[in-house]
């Protein structure tokens, strides 16, 4: 229970505390949350399911190994965001801390709720803080750019709301277990439409082509901490929703109907994102399109509804969070030191900042899925799953290996090794090194022993408790 409510409490405290203490409080708060979730999982048996009653009538909670994984990921991400932005101005803002904790609360709610209504409410709850963070701390010159993100999100939320209402009316059930037991196949076309509503909301958030155009623009205009939160954890809500809720509940007619359209969009995203990333000049834009490419692969693989693939998808989701934080941290470091992220304005940083050169290279290689990193396992098995389902699609998915090398090495080499344009560059601070080191260690640990994660989530993915 504390696990779920702590962030909400911290959010309130952050409002009340004097600004001078905000920064430290944020770091301490996220640390406490992280440890609370770690302690809680320590006594948890992966086979178990933990029901939590907060006394709410329509919103219930239950924790299984999948929820735990996502909650720990959430708390780890928030901790990392605070640690990596510790020296930035943003973390000293009271409003930011309060919103960030509120968002953490919302995310934990999404990952732990047991009722479809709760899922929807928490989903919406996470949107408010991120909107305000973008508005207060972002650099949106034109309202349109921010509006684009709103419109997309609103459209998705609306569709999901309709689907939730429809689902409730159709089944008269709202807990996860009851919805699983309800046979939606009997409703044929209706179930297809209902699933479509969820998928639209998810397609915006994953994001899937062609619902992605908000992404690059929002990522570039958002403060680095906001980009990290969005990319590393918030957008994972959609993949989680797909994996835990939509695919099992609509299993049958509706998933059959949507499978290949979604896979197709995912794979278009893989190639399309990579192609665009090749020639972009803004580091954050490159990483945004890289994200489109990587997440399209995970979404496509999830649609295959294969147990093993789902387990590996979790590994890849965690891996993507690691990569996102690392890459956007690197982009943020360059931006905060040189006031630009345009690679044509950068060059020769490696000479003046060897530590940064090393850690940026390390995270670049993690994003390239080299051996010993989680992505190596993740990419291998996700592409394999797609390949088994459809040979040509698998080969198309595999091109991510090639294109990834093209755009990532370009994004790394030009700023770091290019002709010297930046002769002054303050090397990494201790907190930045610590973040990079933690990320790399996590990636390597998962790369050598993906089993610890796949085995842990296996029960909640393989046998949804009925």
């Amino acid at each position, binding site marked *: 229970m504390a696990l779920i409510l702590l962030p909400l409490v911290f959010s309130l405290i952050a409002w009340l505390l004097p600004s001078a203490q905000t920064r430290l409080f944020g770091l301490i708060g996220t640390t406490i949350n992280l440890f609370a979730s770690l302690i809680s999982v320590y006594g948890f048996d992966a086979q178990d399911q933990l029901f939590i009653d907060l006394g709410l009538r329509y919103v219930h909670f239950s924790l299984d190994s999948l929820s735990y994984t996502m909650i720990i990921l959430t708390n780890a991400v928030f901790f990392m965001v605070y640690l990596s932005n510790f020296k930035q101005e943003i973390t000293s803002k009271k409003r930011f801390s309060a919103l960030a904790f509120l968002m953490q609360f919302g995310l934990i709610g999404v990952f732990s709720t047991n009722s479809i209504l709760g899922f929807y409410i928490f989903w919406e709850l996470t949107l408010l803080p991120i909107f305000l963070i973008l508005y207060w701390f972002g650099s949106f010159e034109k309202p349109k750019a921010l509006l684009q993100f709103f419109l997309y999100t609103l459209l998705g939320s609306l569709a999901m709301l309709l689907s939730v209402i429809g689902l409730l009316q159709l089944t008269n059930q709202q807990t996860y277990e009851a919805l699983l037991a309800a046979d939606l196949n009997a409703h044929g076309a209706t179930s297809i439409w209902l699933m479509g509503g969820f998928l639209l909301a998810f397609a915006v958030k994953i994001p899937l082509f062609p619902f992605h155009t908000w992404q690059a623009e929002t990522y570039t205009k958002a403060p680095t901490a906001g980009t990290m939160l969005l990319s590393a954890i918030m957008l994972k809500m959609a993949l989680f929703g797909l994996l835990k809720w939509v695919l099992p509940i609509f299993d049958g007619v509706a998933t059959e109907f949507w499978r290949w359209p979604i896979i197709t969009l995912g794979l278009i995203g893989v190639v399309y994102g990579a192609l665009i990333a*090749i*020639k972009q000049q803004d580091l954050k834009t490159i990483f945004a399109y890289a994200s489109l490419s990587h997440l399209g692969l995970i979404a496509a693989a999830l649609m295959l509804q294969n147990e093993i693939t789902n387990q590996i998808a979790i590994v890849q989701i965690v891996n993507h969070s690691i990569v996102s934080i690392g890459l956007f941290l690197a982009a943020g470091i360059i931006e905060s030191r040189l006031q630009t992220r345009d690679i044509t304005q950068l060059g020769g940083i490696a000479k003046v900042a060897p530590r940064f050169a090393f850690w940026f290279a390390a995270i670049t290689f993690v994003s390239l899925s080299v*051996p010993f990193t989680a992505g190596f396992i993740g990419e291998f098995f996700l592409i394999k799953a797609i390949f088994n389902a459809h040979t040509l699609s698998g080969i198309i998915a595999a091109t991510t290996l090639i294109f990834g090398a093209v755009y990532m*090495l370009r994004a790394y080499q030009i700023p770091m090794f290019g002709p010297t344009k930046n002769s002054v560059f303050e090397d990494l601070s201790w907190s930045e090194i610590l973040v990079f080191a933690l990320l790399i260690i996590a990636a390597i640990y998962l790369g050598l022993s993906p089993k610890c994660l796949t085995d842990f989530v296996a029960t909640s993915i393989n046998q949804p408790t009925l």
Partner: protein
Amino acid sequence: MPQDLTLILLLSFPLLGFAINGIFGKQLPKMVIGSIATVAVFASFLLATSLFSRLDGTTIVNLFNVLDFENLQINASFQIDALSIWMTLIITGVGSLIHLFSIGYMSHDEGFYKFFTYLNLFIFSMLILVLGSNYFVLFFGWEGVGMCSYLLISFHYNDAQKGIANSLAGRKAFIMNRIGDVGLLVALFMIIGQFNTLEYTKIGHLIESNKALTGGAMFFITLSLFIAATGKSAQIPLFSWLPDAMAGPTPVSALIHAATMVTAGIYLTVRSNFLFELAPFTQNIILYTGLATTLFAAFMALRQNDIKKVLAYSTVSQLGLMFVALGFGAYTVALFHVTTHAFFKALLFLGSGSVIHGMHEEQDIRKMGGLAKLMPITHFTFLIGTMAISGIPFLSGFFSKDEIMAQALHHNTFAYIVLVIAVTMTAVYMFRLYFLTFHGEFRGGDQLKSKVHESGPSMTLPLIILAILSIFGGLLNLPGLFFKNSAHWFDHFLSAGTFGLNHIHPVHLDFATSIQLMIFASIVALSVLIWAYLNYVKKGNIAKDDKDLNGWERLSAAKLFVDELYNVLIVNPILAISDFTGKIIDIKLLRNGVYALADGVLNSANISRKWQSGFLSSYLFWMVFGLIIFVAYYILKISVWH
């Protein structure tokens, strides 16, 4: 010491060297760093010899389980057999000599500790590649050596003039390797689909017990494996990264881009012999790709003037030769050439490194000449390397090349003729290189001449050892006409101890044909030697400037315009598509489309004038307000409804 412990230690030493130098290297003196790295590899070599002496069939050492799914187990397990241990001996043996050489060669380099860190990591990855007992572990090492190769090619990214070129060369290598890796990935998927395992021995047994497995599946699996091999082993069409890879420090060229990593494709094919044996069509593709590569690369080497570029094209050409052997199904013959090539090509590269070191970073042979007197040990050992690769009788290259020629003569006369041409060109460009570098007048100016020096013992010692191996390496696999009873030791050793190869024996020609073949090859090599001596030493011809070249010479110097062709056909179209999707489809079409929609929505509303008069904050306010109302209304509605 039991075998499994030996194996684990063998793998750990380079990893330990990597870790120590990587973490503490900055604080350690250069001598210590170099010694740690070299000793780590040499220790692995000693352990490998111990495994070699105790070889007994195939031993599998299972370290731990990586992933365990109902129908598929992925283990980090390793295989000790003749093939893997032989490769290990080459990697660690030649590897430790090159490490030793690097201590001297890199002594002035700022990134000394990084260099040895990467080098140890490379050795470790390469050992993983050859020692794995399944394709997954192989893929692990395969990607790992690609990464190390990238790091080491772009090692001198700080260089004032060539910094960015060096790192671009690294990127090119990485990307072209990745293209091949897609082939490997696809092959692995198909193998899992077909056999439900990635373990070599299990696949082999499944094939043995089910002869019906032929046709389409085997063709596609082996073709994909071969695509992977073309990437790593620089075959047409994925060969053009290797000459560029010469941007790396010379010991790297010797170790990675000559002796070990580039032979990974050959190792992969030999390891998968049981698959290739069922796919005769793929074998033909290999044969003709190998033939084309060996011929064209030799042609391109004819008019290169960078000492390392000549050797790079020569490596591509020699690798092509090995693939020709694989195309004939003569796996042991290919590996025999892998072995001798590792000796003499490492020797040549290190020799060129010694020359470059002594010439203070000059690589252009037009500026050299007469170095024989100034660098006697380098000269003498380079001469041996040149003779070995050119097929001068009784040196190692003579025997290993002769075996491949014999296969060709037996199977396919056309192939034999092509090989004769390629082998002749090899002798031509090698002797041209040798005479222009070491004989005649020094052409680099008096100032440079006074500074040219022979390299120190840490560099000359490896040269001498490799020279000895290049001379006597042929003894490993002497043909039948020399020692009737103990002939073809290497063939027997590999065949007996490697899964699948015990069924396959390369053809050995009869006595008379063998003799004729050898005599003919000797005549060719010796006449080229005499011609080159007359042309470059007696007549004193030197290499012309590129702009004075005509006809075929120009084509050779311009490397057949392959890079330009790839740019026009592949790189530029992709960049154009990238521009088009990024600027037109994504921004003009999709993003502006959404903008237009947003405008439309806002304008069509009656209150639009009020909305538009506000600032962003009012948009935001309404948006957030709306959302909250939404949620509140909804909760209320549900509560009432229930």
